[in-house]
């Protein structure tokens, strides 16, 4: 009964350990064992051999991935899209949060906040349906409008040049409600005494916004942006896949690492290539997130992830 040391602790806290077991098993099965499966990137996969029994093929998968030019294209697309999303989304969300807080009445804020939040709740498939409704060549709403004005219809699904703008807009549209609520919470937390002091000093509302509200948001902005930068090599698969799908015509301007990995696995069945691209993304992502966390830690220790 009176055992001490490691096994004593285990015995004493066996109930807590037991309660933790399902979650531990879950992450072992769905995260840690697959992590070990990363060796697949260096193998010539065959289904019979599986992850651990397939023969090694050195760096062949990587060579194929890099020499085809795909690696550079999807990395560039992923990073550029994420940078555009970070900038556009944050600026818009902050502006909306400030306007919701400073400029409009209570009932108007409540109603519009509900409306702005709506796109967050629908699946990417439904967003895909909306895109279809707007952009379809034959029946899309945009071409209906152009047609009504006697303008030639535009073939959006076959024109890569439109897509960076469309995807940035869609991302902004879907994230606006979520992000502005988050920034609104941060603004609500600003000390009102500062506002009163500014008012006494004769500052107008705009001066107050730019000299008090915005600087007070810097910590939140910096942390959110740094964390987002940490994820810069992770593409939003749901969005890209439902907006673009397997439309090869658009890949030059829309293919991100995640869609490439998915297609290599399911469509072209190049499992080794897919694993290599996934490995490349994981390592790149891990390095960036460590860097971003280091930056957050330098800036404000309390908000670092670890």
């Amino acid at each position: 009964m009176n055992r001490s040391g490691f096994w004593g602790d285990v015995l004493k806290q066996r109930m807590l350990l037991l309660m933790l077991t399902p979650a531990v098993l879950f992450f072992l099965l769905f995260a840690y064992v697959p992590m070990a499966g990363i060796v697949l990137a260096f193998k010539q996969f065959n289904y019979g051999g599986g992850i651990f029994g397939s023969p090694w093929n050195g760096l062949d998968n990587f060579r194929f991935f890099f020499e085809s030019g795909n690696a550079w294209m999807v990395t560039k697309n992923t990073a550029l899209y994420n940078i555009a999303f970070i900038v556009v989304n944050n600026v818009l969300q902050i502006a909306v949060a400030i306007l919701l807080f400073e400029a409009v009445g209570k009932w108007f804020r409540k109603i519009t906040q509900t409306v702005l939040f709506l796109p967050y709740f629908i699946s990417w498939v439904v967003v895909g349906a909306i895109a279809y409704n707007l952009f379809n060549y034959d029946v899309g709403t945009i071409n209906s409008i152009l047609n009504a004005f006697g303008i030639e219809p535009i073939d959006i699904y076959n024109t890569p040049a439109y897509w960076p703008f469309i995807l940035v807009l869609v991302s902004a549209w879907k994230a606006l409600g979520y992000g502005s609520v988050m920034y609104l919470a941060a603004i609500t937390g600003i000390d009102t005494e500062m506002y009163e002091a500014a008012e006494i000093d004769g500052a107008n509302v705009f001066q107050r916004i730019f000299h008090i509200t915005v600087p007070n948001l810097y910590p939140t902005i910096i942390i959110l942006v740094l964390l987002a930068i940490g994820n810069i090599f992770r593409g939003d698969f749901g969005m890209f896949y439902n907006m673009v799908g397997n439309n090869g015509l658009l890949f030059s301007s829309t293919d991100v690492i995640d869609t490439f990995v998915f297609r290599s696995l399911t469509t072209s069945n190049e499992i080794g290539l897919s694993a290599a691209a996934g490995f490349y993304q994981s390592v790149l992502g891990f390095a960036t997130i460590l860097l971003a966390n280091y930056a957050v830690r330098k800036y404000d220790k309390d908000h670092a992830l670890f």
Partner: protein
Amino acid sequence: MSATVTNYGKTGNTSKGAGKKQIDRLLLSLIGYSVISILAILCIIPFLLIVSSSLSEEGKIIENGFQLIPSMFSLEAYSLLFKYPAQLLKAYGVTIAVTVIGTIGGLFLTAMTSYVLQRKDFKWRNQFSFFFFFTTLFSGGLVPWYLMIIKYLDLKNTLIVLILPMLLNVFYIIVMKSFMSSIPEAITESAKIDGAGDFRIFIQLIMPLSKPALATIGLFIALGYWNDWYNALLFISTENLMPLQYYLYKMLGNMDGMRRAMVSSGAVVTMNIPTESLKMAMTIVATGPILLAYPFIQRYFVQGLTIGAVKG
């Protein structure tokens, strides 16, 4: 200028200041109301477009394209959907089952895990917290995860594969953990003195006290399951197990997919199917429950964001 000020004296100066303030307030309100109104309209118009397209007569859609106001009103798409509802009902059944089971199971496990991790007397809390957290930093990527599920767990075309991979989420565990650590430790301490076991303390004391966090995180989990199509895309090929969103995805994909779906629901192959309006009607039917429940549950999400803002 200075003369005027002297002339009007102190009172004049103040009212002028007040006037200036009025103007900048007014300007800000003007910007605020107009910008927010425009954005709100942009957020709602796509939904209105889908609704009106679903109510348009197919021939008019082919002729003029989708329009915000239908040039000829028709319920044909909906009547067709509800005339052959077999496949749609199956998809609804799958989605509801997955959402209910997944939310209850996921919420319970999230809470239980979080409770242990926030117990200050739990010897290995830091090690285990790191064990969970590390999975958000590094992953093996899609391929090993996919092979784990189809080859080693052999879950292809099962209901389980739609539930299990999404059961736990580290972010929810972190938010729940931070909520639970705001519950006074004295509660656990005094229950322990009364001889209650850890599991009983969790079920009888901690769970009821965590209701606000459970409601919020439960809704996040439920929304995730309701909107999931990804697991079905990867792992489901039988029509009986298609959840709603994936069924919609299939129908949007191509006319063949749409025709197959209607035929397997009992429609006659040679029938003239109003493809475009049907796609839009299907979108409404798949999103309907969310759009209806949304105004009532929205505040829980706002709450959740504020609890979990930046870091849980």
